[in-house]
Each structure stands twice: as structure tokens, then as C-alpha cells.
């Protein structure tokens, strides 16, 4: 700070997400505040982040796995299902909270200058705090049925987590900024959230889509969340299959060689677009809120 005292600077001109990194301490406090406030006065507190996905899992498992009998064609269907649910929940929770984050923090934004990117980023971290316990449950369940992942598969899990976090941040910046001007964004995002669970192979397997879409299957694969869920299946579900259970087409072709890099690029493009839009719109946040 001292070096800056002899320079005249323009107040309120930030460097976007780079400033968030410089303000890590504030980010940490905001995340902690968010978690504290969300569970104030609740007995179960953070435990709710286990209860909700478990209930969701049970509903899907009973309805789809048992009633529609999907578990016959898909061995270890429970693992398959839970791996997808956990990841998609992380994405949807991040995105819908990030979209509301700017409007929710209007009191602060209107009165004090701070890098506004902090708020969407903080909500993604809060969702990550909910995601990790669920991930532990998933890993526990996988170990019970004999999970033997390779190093590459473990690395893929980390990569997918980062990719989904970046994707949610990018979209959150975009819709969070738009939400200041048009509160319709919240509804648009609610719709996206609804679609995402069904537009990725969380409840069913990808080959069903390929059968239906034929040569147009690549469109389905362009969705980064689809690829993320597929890679999660590859890392968590596939290594739990025993030799005689092995499914011939467990993974779509070229998942790791083509689709993962493509999704990573799309994700980075989304982040870039989100940050760009956010910066343009952020100039007027304080007066529009």
C-alpha cells in the first residue's frame, strides 16, 4: 500500500477477478458469514447439506432405479446416480446463489467500493463447502463396494471440480450482473437449473441419448456439465464395477481425448464472457440497485 501513496489513482477501477485473489481474507470472511447466516437458528446446521441430497437420491433411486428398473441395465446404479447428483447439485446451487448474490448484497454495494466479483465467487465457495461433505459420502459408498481408482481418475475428479466451479462462476457473474437490471434473470436461471439435471446423464446413461440422437449426439456432448458428469462416472462408478459386471460402453467415445478439452475450453470462454459482461455492467451497480 505504501508505494501507492504518492500516486493519484482513479477510485473504483478494479481488475476484476484478480482483485478477488488479492482480497482473499475478505473472501474468506464473506464465505464464513454466508454459512453462518444461512444456518442460523437451525438445529441441524451444516448437516442439512447431507440430508437434502440424500432425500433427493432416495426419490430418484426408488422412482427410476426400482420402479422404472434402471438398475438392471446399470450395475451399481446407486453409485452412478449419487455421483451425478452430487456434482450437479454443486453446480446448480452455485449458479442460483451467485445469480442472486449481487442483489442480495445491495446494501453493501451501494455504499462501499469493493471488488464486486467477490460476491458471486463467495457463493461458489459456500457451495463447495456443501459439496465436500457429500463428496466424502460418495467416496465412502464407493469404497464399500470396492472402488479402485487410478491416479489419473483421481486427478480427473479434481479437474472436474475446478471446471464446474469455474463454469458456475462464469455463468454466475453473467446472470448476477444481469439480475441487477432485470430480475428476470433469476427465473431464467431457475429454468437452467431444472434443465441441467435432465440434460446430463445423471439419471439415465449416455447411450440412451446416443440411440435417440444418432449423428447429432455431439450437440449433447457440447454441454460442459454433461462431460463433467460423464467423467465423474468414469472416476467413481466405473472403478467399482467387477469384471463380470463391466459394461461395454461405460463411457462415450473420445471422452477424455476430445470432449474433456472441448468442455474446458467452453468453460473458460464462459468465464471470460461472464467477467467481461460483469465488468461492463458493474460500473452502474451502485446506482441501479
Amino acid at each position, binding site marked *: 500500500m505504501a508505494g501507492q501513496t504518492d500516486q493519484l489513482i482513479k477510485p473504483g477501477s478494479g481488475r476484476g477477478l484478480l482483485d478477488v485473489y488479492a482480497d482473499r481474507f475478505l473472501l474468506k470472511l464473506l464465505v464464513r458469514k454466508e454459512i453462518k447466516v444461512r444456518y442460523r437458528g437451525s438445529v441441524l446446521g451444516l448437516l442439512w447439506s447431507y440430508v437434502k441430497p440424500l432425500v433427493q437420491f432416495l426419490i430418484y433411486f426408488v422412482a427410476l432405479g426400482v420402479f422404472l428398473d434402471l438398475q438392471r441395465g446399470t450395475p451399481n446404479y446407486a453409485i452412478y446416480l449419487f455421483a451425478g447428483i452430487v456434482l450437479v447439485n454443486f453446480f446448480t446451487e452455485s449458479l442460483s446463489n451467485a445469480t442472486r448474490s449481487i442483489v442480495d448484497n445491495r446494501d*453493501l454495494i451501494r455504499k462501499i467500493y469493493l471488488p464486486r466479483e467477490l460476491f458471486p465467487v463467495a457463493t461458489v465457495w459456500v457451495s463447495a463447502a456443501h459439496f465436500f461433505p457429500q463428496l466424502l459420502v460418495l467416496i465412502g459408498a464407493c469404497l464399500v463396494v470396492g472402488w479402485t481408482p487410478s491416479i489419473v481418475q483421481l486427478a480427473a475428479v479434481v479437474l472436474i471440480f475446478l471446471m464446474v466451479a469455474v463454469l458456475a462462476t462464469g455463468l454466475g457473474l453473467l446472470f448476477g450482473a444481469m439480475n441487477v437490471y432485470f*430480475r428476470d434473470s433469476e427465473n431464467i436461471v431457475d429454468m437452467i437449473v431444472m434443465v441441467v439435471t435432465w440434460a446430463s446423464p445423471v439419471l439415465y446413461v449416455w447411450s440412451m441419448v446416443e440411440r435417440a440422437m444418432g449423428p447429432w449426439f455431439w450437440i449433447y456432448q457440447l454441454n460442459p456439465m454433461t462431460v463433467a458428469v460423464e467423467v465423474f462416472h468414469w472416476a467413481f462408478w466405473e472403478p467399482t464395477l467387477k469384471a463380470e459386471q463391466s459394461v461395454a460402453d461405460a463411457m462415450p467415445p473420445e471422452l477424455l481425448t476430445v470432449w474433456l478439452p472441448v468442455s474446458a475450453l467452453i468453460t473458460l470462454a464462459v468465464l471470460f464472457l461472464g467477467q467481461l459482461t460483469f465488468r461492463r455492467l458493474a460500473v452502474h451497480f451502485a446506482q441501479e440497485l
Partner: protein
Amino acid sequence: MTSHGQVAILCTDLRKQFVLRHTRSLKEALVWLVKGRKGDLSKKFLALKDVSLEVKQGETVALLGLNGSGKSTLLKLISGVLQPDGGTVLTRGRVAGLIEVGAGFHHDLSGRDNVYLNGAILGMTEQQIDEKFDAIVEFSEIGEFIDTEVKFYSSGMYLRLAFSIAVHTDPEVFLIDEILAVGDEPFQRKCIAKIKELADKGKTLFVVSHDLDLVATVCERGVLLEHGEVVMDGDVDAVVSELRRRSLSET
């Protein structure tokens, strides 16, 4: 008058325009677009017109004017919350704005958590807050209430804690908007003493207040805003009496 150093705040031809929008729904905006942009979706309003101002380091400036004359808007431009539509603002060193009592306080958090949160929002590092925590609590005279949620504070206690945090952030430029009104007499005196101490240390103060007597004791220089324009800039006593004269002639 004391001699002053370099420029701390430099405003040149500052213009701020507000758009009073009448809709916040995408549907109405689309209908408006489809209908060939007939009628007005918004009204424009000029809150600041070509404000030029130079404040030196160590100066104490009172910004005076009637309601709606653009004082808060100018402060927000200087702190970076708002961006100008014309002209430029430049500042030197860290600027802390007390634009409103306890902005950034969260009702459901304890005083302690809020000290950390608000301190960080105002730009302090974790280490600085750790070091100054006791001094902050002591100055605010909050005592054992520090671990109570701030929603149970009285508005005076709220102000005390907020003010205490702000003065301990140790900024070069200190913007104060209308916050001294809530405290009781002893605390007000304490605040004024603290503000004067800051001024003596060479900090730049920029104070908005409707308490003209108070402002005249704290500040040396006065700037009078009227309908977004600087109409007078000079010794604080002269500006205060000019404002009094104008408000009398208006009623």
C-alpha cells in the same frame, strides 16, 4: 492556515447523471423495443454538474448544501462506489468512506464478527484487525456486548462500533457522511476529538453534515453545493453563513 502537501482529491468537471428507470422487467423493455422505442422508459437527471475541486493532503473540508444537492453523490464518486459520467476523479492514498452508519454490518452476526468483516471491507488485513481489535472495542465502549448479535444493539451502539472500526482503518483520506448525529453527547465529543486528532496527523477529511456548528469547529474549509453545482468554496465560517442566508431567503 497550516500549509498543506500534495493533492489528495482532484475532481475535474465531474458530472453525474442518474437514469430514473421505470421498469425492471424484461417484458416491458422488450415491448418497448418492439413498439419502436416509443415513449420514455427512463428519465434523466443531472445530480452533479461540472464539479471541479481540489483538496490537498491534510485539509479538512466541509461539504455543505441542502437536501438533494448532491453531497452524498459526490462522496460516492470519490470513494469509487459510483463512476462519473463525465470528468475525472483522482485520489491519493487509501480512502475510507463512512457513507452510512454500519454499511456492511450484518445483523445476524456478533459485534466481533462484524468488526472483522467490516474491517476487511474497509481494506484492513487480518493482522491489522487482530492488532487493533482491542483498541476498536475500547474506543466504541461496547464492552461485553461485543459478542452479542448487532441486531440487538441500539442505534447509538451501532454507530459507535462502526465509527470506531472506520477510524482504526487508518486511511489517508476520510470521507464522513452524516454519521455523527446518532451518538450521545459524550461520544460525539469523543468522535470530534478523534477527528481533530486525525486532522492533526495530516489526514485529509471530507465531511458532510447538516450540523453547521459542529462542522465549523472541525473543518477549516467549506464547499457549498447547490443543485449539483459548487456555488461557493472558501473559509468554513463564510460558507456556513452563506448557507444560512440562502436557506433563510428560501423559506
